[in-house]
């Protein structure tokens, strides 16, 4: 068996849902794939978070950008999307793009070059330099969905990031906390993909406001993505 085939088989299984009436694949990488428009959506890459903290004296391992880009590259090679939309906070701070190591810069350039790429701007990266390739936007309309960084309460049918949802489940005194997609079928808040991006518990009131009808949490486990009701989750 070839290594590529083996990797394919070991790839944790995602889950297919319907979002605003169309199919959407929730991938174990944290990316969301819309097959109808051949678009891969990723949220909160937070590239160069490590070096951002290193500037302040916490010398975190500088491998986070490489790890995040590797996960992104893997999802892209799996889905082979025509379009990629990064939902904002792609860099941890404004100076992040300047601090990219040469090798990471090349990896990113190769990813961007191969397809139509949109950087939605977020609060951490309100502007991005030209040199990255792709185009920048405040939001993107895609069929019946609006793609933006900050979810907007009340509005419907959107894909957003910003909140880094994680779900926590405790059973029999044992607990697990993992990244999750939260969705009510119209809106989906995507988990952060960034290797050092922390998370906000799905039981936080911020999510109740966004999902007055409740939501399902699609939680990224080691082997596959698990779909859990809100009632199965607990706060931190």
């Amino acid at each position, binding site marked *: 068996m070839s290594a590529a085939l083996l990797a394919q088989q070991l790839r944790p299984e995602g889950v297919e849902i319907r979002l605003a009436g169309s199919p959407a694949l929730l991938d174990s990488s944290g990316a969301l794939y819309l097959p109808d428009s051949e678009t891969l959506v990723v949220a909160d890459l937070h590239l160069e*978070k*490590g*070096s951002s*903290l*290193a*500037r*302040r*004296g*916490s*010398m*975190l*391992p*500088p*491998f*986070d950008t*490489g*790890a995040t880009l590797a996960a992104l590259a893997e999802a892209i090679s799996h889905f082979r999307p025509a379009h990629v939309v990064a939902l904002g906070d792609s860099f941890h701070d404004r100076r992040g793009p300047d601090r990219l*190591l040469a090798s990471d810069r090349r990896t990113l350039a190769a990813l961007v070059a191969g397809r139509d790429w949109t950087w939605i701007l977020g609060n951490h990266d309100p502007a991005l330099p030209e040199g990255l390739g792709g185009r920048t936007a405040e939001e993107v309309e895609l069929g019946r969905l609006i793609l933006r960084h900050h979810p907007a309460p009340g509005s419907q049918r959107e894909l957003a990031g910003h909140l880094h949802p994680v779900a926590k*489940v*405790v*059973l029999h*005194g*044992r*607990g*697990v906390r*993992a990244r999750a997609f939260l969705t009510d079928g119209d809106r989906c808040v995507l988990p952060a993909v960034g*290797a*050092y*991006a*922390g998370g906000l518990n799905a039981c936080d009131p911020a999510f109740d406001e966004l999902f007055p009808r409740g939501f*399902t949490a699609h*939680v990224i*486990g*080691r*082997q*596959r993505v*698990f*779909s*859990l*009701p809100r*009632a*199965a989750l*607990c*706060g*931190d």
Partner: protein
Amino acid sequence: MTYPDLPPAFQDWFASRGWEPRPHQLSLLEKGRAGRSVLLVAPTGAGKTLAGFLPSLVELSSRPPEPAGRAAPARRLHTLYISPLKALAVDVARNLETPVAEMGLPVAVETRTGDTPPHKRKRQVERPPDILMTTPEQLALLLASRSAEELFGGLRRVVLDELHALVTSKRGDLLALDLARLHRLAPGLQAVGLSATVRQPEALQRYLVPWRRPETEPDAAPAGEGREPGPLADLVVVAGGAEPDIRLLTLDRDLPLAGHMGALSLPAIYRLIQDHKTTLVFTNTRFQAEFTFQELWRINEDTLPIAIHHGSLDREQRRRVEAAMTAGKLKAVVCTATLDLGIDWGDVDLVVNVGAPKGASRIMQRIGRANHRLDEPSRAYLAPTNRFEILECTAALDAVHEAAQDTPDPRPGALDVLAQHVLGMACAGPFSMEELYEEVTSASPYADLSWEDFELVVDFAATGGYALRAYERFAKILRGPDGLWRIRDGRVAQQYRMNAGTIVGAGLLKVRLLRSSRKSPGSLVPRGKVLGEMEEGFCEMLSPGDTFVFAGEVLRFEGIREDEAHVTRAPAGTEPLIPSWGGSKFPLSTFLAARVRRLLADPAEWGRLPMGADEWLRQQQRRSLIPEPGDLLVETFPRQRRHYLVAFPFEGRLAHQTLGMLLTRRLERARLRPLGFVANDYGIAVYGLGDVAARVEEEPGFLDELFSEDMLGDDLEDWLHESALMKRTFRDCAVIAGLIERRHPGEKRRTQRQTNISTDLVYDVLRRHQPDHLLLRAARADAATGLLDVKRLGLMLSRIRGRIRHKPLDRVSPLAVSLILEIGRERVSGEAADEILAEAEQMLLEEANA
């Protein structure tokens, strides 16, 4: 009788008290005069502390008086006293003030702790007292300042109290490094160690004095090879006074097969409390302390003043208990290890230890808390709570009568601690790498540190030590053209000061009572009092509505807000739902475990075992078998549609938990479908759907393979990758080494929940990209002896190679009952991520199908 070494004022003072100086006190005086460092080993009540200070008091009292006014050189610090506990430093200072005042000695004694106000700290550095009492953490901070050289340049003596309790921890590593710096700043410094009885005094004698490498180039002498034993401090031993009067608390009924609460013994303990002046009731866990306290009050018909004391109670409450205790107002205090160390709590005349003693030296130190007078026997009772503990208590009693010791061996110094120290030394002033290496390796825990590792540590302190050289421009310390390393700027020093120390709390949350709101009746507001602190890890595993015992009452968990756990009082009569938090911190010592195995293997000895233990072992002999001391008994049996595998290695809970994790993985791979396991200090039970006995029948070598040492290879590595315990170990190293900040200048102290980066994420990334990184090495070294006890597990696996005795049974054996009764009572910190998610997912399906 007169003592030539003792000035008249001192002789008069001893006489006025009706005392005579004890031989070891005089002996320390003589060592002081001769300029020798010395280790004083003495049981509690021997006047150890006074002995430690006597040379300094005599020297200071015979100083020529200072010329008044005139710009005389400021006095310098003469003696430094280091205690592992802040409270002990304060207590000893108070005790020292008595002779100083009564003899009218011109000696200034002060304490310096985290509570000392800033203006006083500043003054203490500018105009130091003669004697300063402090903790290892405060010493590290003082040494990391630019005034260290001036402050400590004239230091004559450093007294290290309770040294046995410090040396085998990271605090001991840090103290060793600081001691090395003191020896350099103050040539001729005398170090005086005060210690309880230990197994290997040489290790402590070596700790006190700097070890000097033979005259060779640093890189010419390979570390650890052909090394001289090095100089040792002198040793003064005070023979243990009267033999302790220690017994097993024997009831006229059988003890249960499992459980740790000891409810049956409480009426007997209550009667002992009634009959004694003041009793200390030691327990192994806080939960056990809470339970014992509650139950004693339930039967406290005479409303005797009985109090509770443990580390997570609110500080004020603890102080009240301590004060009442010193004033002799309490009949009993139920406590945990927080009262293990030497504070003098007044007239304790009885110690009761509930539950397993865990170690011979530990129990002896606890017993020593009773009767602080050397010549009278300490009275103590060991109260086992189940039948296994009868064996353990009996073995411990034997050890006490033989005065056998099982204090842990010294260990190599931790690299994360060294990283913190290197940064601290850069804050003190520019350093040369070669000189600092000489200094660091003069500290006994770091004597074997290689130059290469030292370089890695310095590189880590500078830029994180990554193969990917990404952070050169952010370096915290830089090498100048003169070859010396300096901190980048003042912010680095500030950051160091805010993050120094080696005690990483488990991450504590305040426990606050909710009160009904006055404004909107029916709703609760967090305005009630703070009851104490609990580990975040415990709180995070609670769901709202769960009930548990804390601070002597049953509480209902309501939720977590920021750094507080909110609770309400549970209605009267509520049984706590969550049975336990944290097991004993101390696993059964290797020494005591070996004795328990021998006792178990020798039926001639069983007659001494009361309360049903004798009969229990005879039944085991009839229904299964009794293993030889070197054998490992493995029983297999079916029960309630599950198959059990039970083994009795007697290696302590931590090593058994690790074994359980690894066995479960292996059984899974052998398609025997394990479902879970339970471990205690004595053994482990794994249960599942597959029939292990049937597999052994097909494949006779199966068990040997299952327990083979190679599980410590790939299986261990795989498991460590996702182990929550390993991640916790890594987090502690990351905090100590300064990778993760506890506080950032200008911000409030953070709890683990508030750190801006999750160390779990850092661990994952680092492990994948630089598995040999310094911090991962530090974490692995800790895992070997700490929470995972991998080292002990390894020794066990090699001990039992070829010595597995398999006994297939058709039902549970008497020994195994004790273990499997614990299923569901003890929580195992598991790594069953996907299993939990899968189970929760079922809920959605059921909801949909309803």
